[in-house]
């Protein structure tokens, strides 16, 4: 399968303070790749570097073989247009209705007619189960609905890669499960590659084809592979400990 993301020898940090060192991994097309780890291990820092919010201190992030951070501004913007990002709280624009939230990226980056954009926005809302809420404002929605609406906006431009930052955070188990199913459906229906940052074990086992486990103490990745294989095959107590909620450490 074609490799769409390659991360090579990546160092990340803030103001010279190191957070992660020597991160290497790759993500294949159509794969659900989970970046997991305990709180404060640098998951979100890694995500921010991957979506263009924080430059790395060293190393490369390649999309389709092109170094994201070494590309010129215009090229980087073009690459970012192929990303969809679902932020933790949905990050919807509160002064716009859900339909307007989803339509905005389409208005900015497509030459489609206004009725086409309107239909497309409602289709995307329908894909996340919010077809009946097109005229609602974010303030009128529950936390789970906001996340789904945020997802509808993230997939507005049919991105090649969709990034999820803690999609299950703040959701009840059923909503969390529904969102996991939605992630898999989107992967199947839109053919997108999915990168998820989370520490929710139920979600990790439900959706991940491949995963990377980060560790705060060592400031780097300690395991890579499918969560099932890591659970059965890893001899590292940190890996088995994380994947069994501390029940099994060897």
């Amino acid at each position, binding site marked *: 399968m074609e490799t769409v993301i390659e991360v090579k020898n990546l160092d990340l940090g803030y103001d010279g303070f190191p957070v992660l060192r020597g991160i290497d991994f790759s993500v294949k097309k159509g794969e659900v790749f989970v970046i997991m780890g305990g709180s404060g291990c640098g998951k979100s820092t890694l995500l921010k570097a991957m979506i263009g919010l924080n430059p790395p201190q060293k190393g490369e992030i390649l999309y389709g073989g092109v170094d994201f951070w070494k590309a010129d501004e215009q090229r980087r913007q073009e690459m970012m*247009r192929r990303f969809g990002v679902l932020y933790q709280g949905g990050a919807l624009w*509160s*002064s716009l209705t859900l*339909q307007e939230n989803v339509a905005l990226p*389409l208005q900015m*980056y*497509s*030459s*489609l*007619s206004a*009725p*086409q954009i309107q*239909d*497309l926005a*409602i*289709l*995307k*809302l*329908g*894909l996340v189960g*919010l*077809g*009946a*809420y*097109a*005229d*609602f*404002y*974010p*303030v009128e929605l529950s936390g789970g609905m906001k996340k789904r609406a945020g997802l509808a906006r993230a997939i507005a*431009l*049919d991105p090649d890669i969709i990034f999820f930052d803690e999609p299950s955070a703040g959701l009840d188990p059923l909503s969390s499960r529904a969102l996991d199913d939605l992630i898999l459906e989107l992967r*199947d*229906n*839109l*053919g997108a590659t999915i990168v998820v940052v989370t520490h929710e074990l139920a979600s990790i086992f439900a959706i991940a084809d491949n995963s990377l486990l980060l560790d705060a103490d060592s400031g780097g990745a300690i395991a890579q592979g499918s969560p099932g294989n890591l659970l059965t095959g890893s001899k590292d107590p940190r890996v088995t400990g994380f994947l069994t909620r501390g029940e099994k450490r060897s």
Partner: protein
Amino acid sequence: MPDKIVFDYSKEGLVRVELSGDWRITAGCPLAEEAFSRISSRGGISGAELSVSPGFKWDSAFVSFLIQLEHLLKEKKIALSVTGLPEHAQKLFLIAQHPQIAHGGHREGPKEPFFDIVGGGILRTKYAFLSVLEFLGEIVISFNRLFRGRAFFRKDDFFLIVQRCGIDALGLVSLITLLVGVILAFIGAIQLRMFGAQIYIADIVGIAMVRVMGAVMTAVLMSGRTGASFAAELGIMQSNEEIDALKTLGVSPVEFLVVPRILALAVMMPLLTLYADLMGIIGGFVISTAILGLNPVEYINHTLSAVSLTNLWLGLIHSFVFGLIISVSGCYRGLKCERSSAGVGEATTSAVVTAITYIVIATAVITFVCQIIGV
């Protein structure tokens, strides 16, 4: 469009439509109306069969095209067959048939009758009035608790607010009130020069600044600066559920957040106004002596004799009332803010507009009362 769609009418009653090329969002999609007009241009067509040629590229923009085309064909009772399309496109098109999506997903409801709108407006006004009364009542209760030493009140917060709405505002107040003094002097000079009574510029500037202008100008500045900041701060606290956290802790938000703000502004406004009065008089003095050629000593003497203690007290009363208006408006709008960033913006604007409106009304009322009692 013609390059992307080929129409084949060879079979009786059926149009075969072959799609090719790039139909993705970024490339743009042909309009469904154009395809529809070509399909329905010939009589006796009862079906349209879509297929794609090799290399056909699509995403959900293509599905949007299909939705529109099907909608148009349905009106002409022409069946649309999509079995020749890529499997995922068929699947997405099927999802789009869901009633919520197919019907546009808009809120539906009958148009509200006229009397409902009027009645709703009256009820909203009533509730808004009651809500203000409730807020004012809470303030009175909180101050009562404060004076009895029972209020939950952080002195550090109070001094921080005093600094922010007092010392930090000095620069802005200096600049504006100095210029107001300059403007008053110039306007006075134009009129008084005709009568050779330019020295009375000192009286005009002194009385105007001390009696009302110093307080009004300071109040307008403070409502834009501090009132808006109170509304935004409390509004963001409201959207972050910080106010809820206080309530569940059993702490009155009015006591904890509003009282220190009202107190700080009620104390600082008279002090800022005194300072503004002085700056305005200095502005008038500089212009009158340096440009209009008046004698400095004479100007100062005139100012001292014109500005009475009554004027000074009146100015201070104005400023105290304005301080209450600005802080109460800012805090009320902030606490009643909708839990969204747009709500915070509205609360801020509303706080400034409310404060300035009531400042003007209060000025008119105080002036009217002074007129009646002969002050």
